[in-house]
């Protein structure tokens, strides 16, 4: 049954999406950043993907464009999931925000922004969420060393 759903989705979105891939039970669509908002709107309104699960990014430092922004959606009626992947580069890491469509996008886009530096155009609130004010850099990028600490409270002298 999920194969039928996936076939319908791909047929409808064939222009925007590239070759569909079914990876471990999830339809994966590779799309251009400019087509993101319209594709998601189609998924939500035509195909019933009413739950926005997750947005994150994957950093490929040796590739141009560098980041893969990955969105996951779930349909509570058809019980299937879809993954959307878009590629953005380091010099223009901007994608459209899904806040107008899903409330859940607010916090998840904030986290993706502070961890990777992806800018979500249209999200009114991109303050740090898991990190703190004054943190410089984007820690989940591969070029951020894991142990570089930025303490807020200066360390005291070691205990005697």
């Amino acid at each position, binding site marked *: 049954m999920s194969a039928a759903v996936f076939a319908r989705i791909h047929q409808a979105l064939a222009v925007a999406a590239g070759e569909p891939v079914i990876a471990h039970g999830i339809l994966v669509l590779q799309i251009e950043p400019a087509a993101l908002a319209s594709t998601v709107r189609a998924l939500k309104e035509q195909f019933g993907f009413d739950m926005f699960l997750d947005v994150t990014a994957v950093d490929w430092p040796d590739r141009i464009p560098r980041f893969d922004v990955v969105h996951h959606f779930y349909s509570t009626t058809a019980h299937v999931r879809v993954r959307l992947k878009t590629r953005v580069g380091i010099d223009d890491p901007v994608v459209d925000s899904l806040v107008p469509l899903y409330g859940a996008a607010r916090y998840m886009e904030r986290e993706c922004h502070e961890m990777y530096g992806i800018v979500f155009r249209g999200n009114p609130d991109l303050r740090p969420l898991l990190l703190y004010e004054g943190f410089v850099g984007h*820690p989940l990028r591969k070029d951020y060393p894991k142990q570089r600490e930025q303490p807020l409270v200066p360390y*005291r002298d070691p*205990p005697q």
Partner: protein
Amino acid sequence: MTTTRKPVSERSAAFEYLTTKKDELVGWARKFSLFPYPFVTACCGMEFMSVSSTPYDTDRFGAALPRFTPRQSDLLMVVGTISHKQAPVLKRVYEQMCEPKWVMAFGVCATSGGFYQNYAALPGIDKIIPVDIYIPGCPPRPEMVIDGIMRLQERIAGQRHPIINQDF
């Protein structure tokens, strides 16, 4: 301006005997009436809940009544990982406590950062506040926590308790 204690040659034996007995009495009273401030953040909090309940029960040691305000507590139990974001909060809470106060680092994350050696976790709370007792474990078994409380009580019993001035 802080006053210092009189040098040994000027102290009288009778006064010192009185001070020792006073310290024992006050130490006994303080060690059996600890008011913890459970600064609970993470997984160790589950073991803190277990150690406060049956069958491990910290009430036997006098350390059961938590006070969720630093103004009324004397034992700061830092339970769980402290991240760099939480560090100013911890420091503020510590500074708001009145003397005498003791700090317990509950779990390895509070002791040394645990196995989170990265940009986010503070590598041990003794980087920002002085600690009196470290309880290792991830999370520590309740028996280990009770052992830690008992050692802290021994420490409190054996330390000086100046109640009027530096000498007495």
